[in-house]
């Protein structure tokens, strides 16, 4: 019986095995080119410690501020129904995967020296430096934090809201006795995720850092690879980054409570709480933060659509070549990422139902998330070296970019897929077992229930790959110019107006693909409501 199940698991095992093999090949290749005796010398460089200190500081500040704003915003979105709430949630899901370079452009238009804030209110924001980095990180991560916290709200049994209504809880008492209890379970994970994203932030620091004073480890790795081609230093910096991230994650997970759904037999219904002027005021302030921090850069991005230059830019051949390259990278990368995610999910839930393997699902999920600790640039370099060793040199660049984009999107894919896959396993495991339904037959039955999440995963992977400005920056000069790189080159040559138009094309492409993914993979009405 066990071996028959293993046979059905073969594709998933192969997928995860390939992922591990590529990781190992990358690590071995990097270590082969390392000179360990030189590492001690790096440790004594004051520049290194300044970079480490700043990387930690900006990541801590960015994740702290993002979560501080996200908590009241999530609570407000949970309890209030207002016009535009749905649109705001959609915007949040898009903003975390908006191409970094496009968002940076939006931030420059709003907060830059001659930006909207300066023009209309006379307020000068020192955008280049820590402020700019924080603004960009909050722009990206606060919406992500809100979405993660809202997932935490889903853990609250509906029966608790019903009791809260009966007992006359105010928003504050509900937050204190119900919401905070569940937030505590979600916050450490959210904090680690955002911390790691900010710690390994590349394009934001490169564009808004304003100089070596505000450099991070990721940028230092890029400089070591791109300008010095110092593999030894790059390996050292990469390992240092992985170590810091691992230590941080271990520390936070050690103190974090277990995330567990309390049992409730009641279907989710809205139960209103006692409202007050204070609650309305607090919600107003929370929403104002969103409108100030997230909305204006979005509006700014779409500004050039009405200019004549936009139509001129549309006629540029280089633009459409870049669009083609972006699609050639994003489509296979997203597909690989989702397939990998499904392999991880299938393996994790196989372990769920077996007492002797019950400790594994979390570990498997963490394995997929580990990629957040490893800089994409380093994976790309390791792979390039490994493939060069086996005789595939420059022609492998394209596939390296595709693979690295696929694995970098994996944590997001897992986040979208895993909850629903676990839920299906818990609810129907015994039915499937008793009827002997396995592998493809099971997939066919489950598809209507999971397709919305698969579409979401595919959408995220598509957007992340389309907006990638990390790996492509490394391999860009090999005739592989994607839209973000093209945009970066335009900004670098001070063709800002043209760059803005390209940014609009990039964002429209993102929206089209995200919509296409939701519509064609997710289904007409978003598939079957899994909550029912």
């Amino acid at each position: 019986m066990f071996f028959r199940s293993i046979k059905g698991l073969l594709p998933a095992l192969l997928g995860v095995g390939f992922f591990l093999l590529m990781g190992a090949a990358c690590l071995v290749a990097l270590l082969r080119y390392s000179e360990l005796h030189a590492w001690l010398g790096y440790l004594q460089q004051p520049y290194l410690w300044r970079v480490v200190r700043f990387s930690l500081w900006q990541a801590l500040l960015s994740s702290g501020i993002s979560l501080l704003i996200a908590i009241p915003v999530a609570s407000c979105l949970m309890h209030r129904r207002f016009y535009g709430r749905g649109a705001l949630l959609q915007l949040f899901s898009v903003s975390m995967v908006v191409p970094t370079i496009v968002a940076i452009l939006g931030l420059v238009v709003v907060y830059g020296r001659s930006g909207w804030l300066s023009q209309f209110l006379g307020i000068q924001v020192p955008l280049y430096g820590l402020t700019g980095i924080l603004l960009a990180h909050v722009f990206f991560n606060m919406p992500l934090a809100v979405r993660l916290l809202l997932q935490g709200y889903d853990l609250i049994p509906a029966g608790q809201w019903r009791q809260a209504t009966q007992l006359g809880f105010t928003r504050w008492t509900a937050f204190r006795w119900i919401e905070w209890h569940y937030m505590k379970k979600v916050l450490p994970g959210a904090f680690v995720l955002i911390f790691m994203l900010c710690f390994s932030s590349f394009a934001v620091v490169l564009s808004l850092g304003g100089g070596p004073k505000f450099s991070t480890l990721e940028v230092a790795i890029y400089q070591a690879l791109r300008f010095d081609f110092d593999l030894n230093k790059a390996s050292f910096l990469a390992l240092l980054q992985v170590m810091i991230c691992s230590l941080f994650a271990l520390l936070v997970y050690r103190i974090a409570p277990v995330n567990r759904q309390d049992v409730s037999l009641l279907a989710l219904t809205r139960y209103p709480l006692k409202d007050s002027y204070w609650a309305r005021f607090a919600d107003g302030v929370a929403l104002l933060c969103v409108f100030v921090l997230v909305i204006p850069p979005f509006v700014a991005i779409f500004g050039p659509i009405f200019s004549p230059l936009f139509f001129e830019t549309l006629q540029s051949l280089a633009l459409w070549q870049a669009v083609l390259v972006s699609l050639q990278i994003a489509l296979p990368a997203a597909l690989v990422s989702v397939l990998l995610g499904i392999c991880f999910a299938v393996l994790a839930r196989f372990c769920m139902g077996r007492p002797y393997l019950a400790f594994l699902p979390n570990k498997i999920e963490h394995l997929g998330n580990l990629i957040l600790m490893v800089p994409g640039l380093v994976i790309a370099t390791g792979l390039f070296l490994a493939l060069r060793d086996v005789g595939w040199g420059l022609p492998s660049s394209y596939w390296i970019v595709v693979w690295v984009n696929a694995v970098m999107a994996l944590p997001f894919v897992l986040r979208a897929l895993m909850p629903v896959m676990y839920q299906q396993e818990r609810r129907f495991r015994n039915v499937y077992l008793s009827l002997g339904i396995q592998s493809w037959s099971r997939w066919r039955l489950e598809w209507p229930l999971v397709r919305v999440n698969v579409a979401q995963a595919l959408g995220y992977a598509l957007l992340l790959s389309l907006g990638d400005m990390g790996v492509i920056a490394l391999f860009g000069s090999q005739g592989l110019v994607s839209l973000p790189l093209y945009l970066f080159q335009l900004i670098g040559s001070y063709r800002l107006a043209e760059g803005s138009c390209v940014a609009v094309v990039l964002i429209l492409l993102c929206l089209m693909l995200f919509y296409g993914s939701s519509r064609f993979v997710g289904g007409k009405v978003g598939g079957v409501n899994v909550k029912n």
Partner: protein
Amino acid sequence: MLKINLQYDWERFHANYCVNIKPGMTTLLGGSGEGKSTLLHLLGGYLEGRGELYFHEASLLSLPAYERPISTLFQSDNLFPQLTVWQNVAIGVSPSLSLNREQKEKVSWALEKTQLVDKVKRFPQALSGGQAQRVAIARALVRKKPILLLDEPFSALDPALREEMLYLVNEVTDELGLTTLLISHLPQEACLVGGRVILIEQGEVIAHEPVSVLSQPEPHALFSNYLGVGVSSRSTI
């Protein structure tokens, strides 16, 4: 006196409840899906209905759930798993859990009444089903609301424990002069708690009689369909 004249529509289900209920125990009987829980949810303020709902001549219909003079015990999810037994009871007196001496005494009284004094520091997960429902009853006691709605809260308990709980509810109802509405599928439970019975069919109150109708040798005309043949002998067990 609880005066009910409520209408509620949901898809093809149209309910029209019209009945006056006196203080004491009243058991709501009826088949599955006939609208017993809907009535309790309308009374509790968890569903929005049309019509009139008066208690001692005061209209309750426009009041939110927390302002109605009603405590409801549901089939599940009555307790907060993150709070201790003491906190779960005390939160019924003050949602902020900052209690004065008098309120603390009230909580102690309710815990004594429900024999939970030695369990105050436990969390709901560490309680048996019967103990957990006693905590919910203790909370209903401290809230001192004159109407108590019981939406099959004891259905998951074994028969002996269920009986014990029903005695407790009966005792509390008598002692505090409550208007208690109990949903049940079992006529013998109605016989156990006494008072009156209401029969609900397709969202309407078909009968409202003393509980003695269930133990008559010949089934009451309005109840015969629900009770079926030979049930009168079962209900006297």
